[in-house]
């Protein structure tokens, strides 16, 4: 599904070069639920941006669903993002002036679906996240958890094969976070590949695999078989990067 080999990303200013990712290697199989953890500044967000085709990279190979994305132009990258990737952001990133229906509609319009097809998908996805009765509400009229559910509905509406979540529970209390996490697991169980960046170890253990990123490299890959936080924490660093 996602295959990165020796991906390097360098941020340059007039005075400084910063290697945000250096020889980053990762392979995510179809249907996996992978969490990405690591300290601040380790390169998690840069990885997420590159994985989601939001940023270009300087070196290496990145195949998404079998397609090398390195030399795609902006329009091709936009189309690929729209068709294959669903995004869930920490701050939900809903458009405040649009009601829930129109918010979920945003990526569907870029896909070029006709209005009846868009309506069918929007209603189904808002039903899935339990907000079908709030379609005409504005984001500001919802709680944080509900807003994130709308964002998930928006991410799912295009039926992407690959869901990228950036700290999706970072702005939620624990109860809402658990609810959103359960929703993501349900979505993964339906076959959607999910890569989720998180700071929260307890969320990381709920995935099938955890990638630990440090200094722009994958420094640890953990297959989650344990079910308690103590077991998760006891898994030691190995330095391996390929699964």
């Amino acid at each position, binding site marked *: 599904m996602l295959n990165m080999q020796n991906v390097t990303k360098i941020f340059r200013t007039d005075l400084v070069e910063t290697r945000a990712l250096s020889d980053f290697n990762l392979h995510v199989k179809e249907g996996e639920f992978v969490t990405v953890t690591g300290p601040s500044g380790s390169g998690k967000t840069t990885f997420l941006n590159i994985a989601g085709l939001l940023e270009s990279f300087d070196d290496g190979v990145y195949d998404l669903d079998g397609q090398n994305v390195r030399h795609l132009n902006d329009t091709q990258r936009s189309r690929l993002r729209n068709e294959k990737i669903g995004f869930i952001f920490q701050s939900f990133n809903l458009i405040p002036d649009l009601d829930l229906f129109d918010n979920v509609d945003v990526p569907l319009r*870029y*896909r070029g679906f006709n209005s009846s097809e868009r309506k069918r998908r929007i209603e189904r996805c808002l039903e899935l996240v339990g907000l079908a009765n709030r379609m005409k509400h504005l984001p500001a009229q919802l709680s944080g958890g509900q807003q994130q559910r709308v964002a998930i509905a928006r991410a799912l509406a295009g039926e992407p094969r690959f869901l990228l979540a950036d700290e999706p529970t970072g702005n939620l209390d624990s109860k809402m976070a658990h609810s959103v996490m359960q929703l993501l697991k349900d979505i993964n169980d339906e076959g959607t590949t999910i890569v989720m960046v998180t700071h929260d170890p307890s969320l990381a253990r709920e995935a099938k695999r955890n990638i630990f990123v440090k200094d722009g490299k994958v420094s640890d890959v953990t297959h989650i078989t344990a079910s308690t936080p103590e077991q998760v924490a006891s898994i030691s660093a190995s330095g391996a990067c390929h699964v």
Partner: protein
Amino acid sequence: MLPFSSWEIGPIFRAMTRNKVGAVLIALQVAVTMCIIVNSVHILMERTEQMARDSGIDEANSFYLSSTGFADDFNDQVVIQTDLDAIRALPGVIDAMQINAIPISGGGWSMGLQTQPGAEFEGVGTAVYMVDDHVLNTLDLELIAGEAFQPSDIRWRERSQRDWPAEIIITRALTENLFPEQSYQDTVGKTLYINDDEPVIIKGIIDKLQAPWVGWERLENAMLSPEQTLFSSSMYFVRTEPGRLDELMPAVEQMLADSNKGRVVRGLRSMQETRERTYRRDQAMIKILTTVMITLTLVTALGIVGLASFNVNRRRKQIGTRRALGASQASVLRYFMLENFLISSIGVILGAVLTVGLNIYLVQSLGLTKLHWWLIPVGMLTLWLVGQLAVLGPARRATATSPAIATRTV
């Protein structure tokens, strides 16, 4: 290219209704601008058309000047005849005559002509030009029916004299006003009445000659009366060969001044200068209105640029999110262009109503003519175009927004 159904017209409109202050202000600005610009263009067109009207004479090669005698032995009749013979004999002069008033100059003589005698009948107003038999050649007029004046038709007129010559030549416009049911050819030989009951016969019809008053609604009503005036001052009208005007104007003035020291020669002016002086206020109005239109358009365009720039900056994260969700750069550009198009559309529709309203007011209160209907769609298209051009810069900046902004938390 996405299908039209995928364009975000509905969401953009709904979003605008929820955050409408800026959009409403710009729409109002577009409406007021359109209202003022379209009515200004209408006034400009009207003025320009008025200024472009043909006076009927050879303005480019004509000038005039006056002679006022003061010496005790000054004989008007002799001097006038001598002066005209001398002017006509100058190389480069096509012809010359004495005239009592100058077309489009602002000052002249008017009378009423009627087709039936009696004070109970209302006359048709006309400018009166007292001229001699050289008039057609001097003014370069076209006789389209009847006959020209002969030397024997010309009489001398004292200042206190009240009667009129037996025959006159009138313009085609005047004969059509007097005899609306008849063709102008058939009116030659008909009797008109001046001073209620004094008969004059139409000897000929000329195609066109404007009156001295350019603001008069019957500007082309003019009559030629075959007489030379013995007033305190005589005005000579001179037509030169093409290209000789500048040379002959001072030459004629000097010749007249030298030929008789018992008079003052003054008021030397070309017809081109007369036209320029007559329409000076209209020219000034055209410049002022043009300046106002350009300024208003620029202010509106800047307002659109300002609102669009503000929106781009305010929505940078939103643009990044849209890009992350699959919006191409073209989609972002289209979003802002469409948003402006909708605002401009509201503005121009309101502007069309305001434009018609202002025109009705101007027609009723200032006597302006009705607006040409096609100016409204042209005004709408212009304001749409101005809006789209104004928003292009900010919209292009918006397309440069990186989709990676979507994942930034600040």
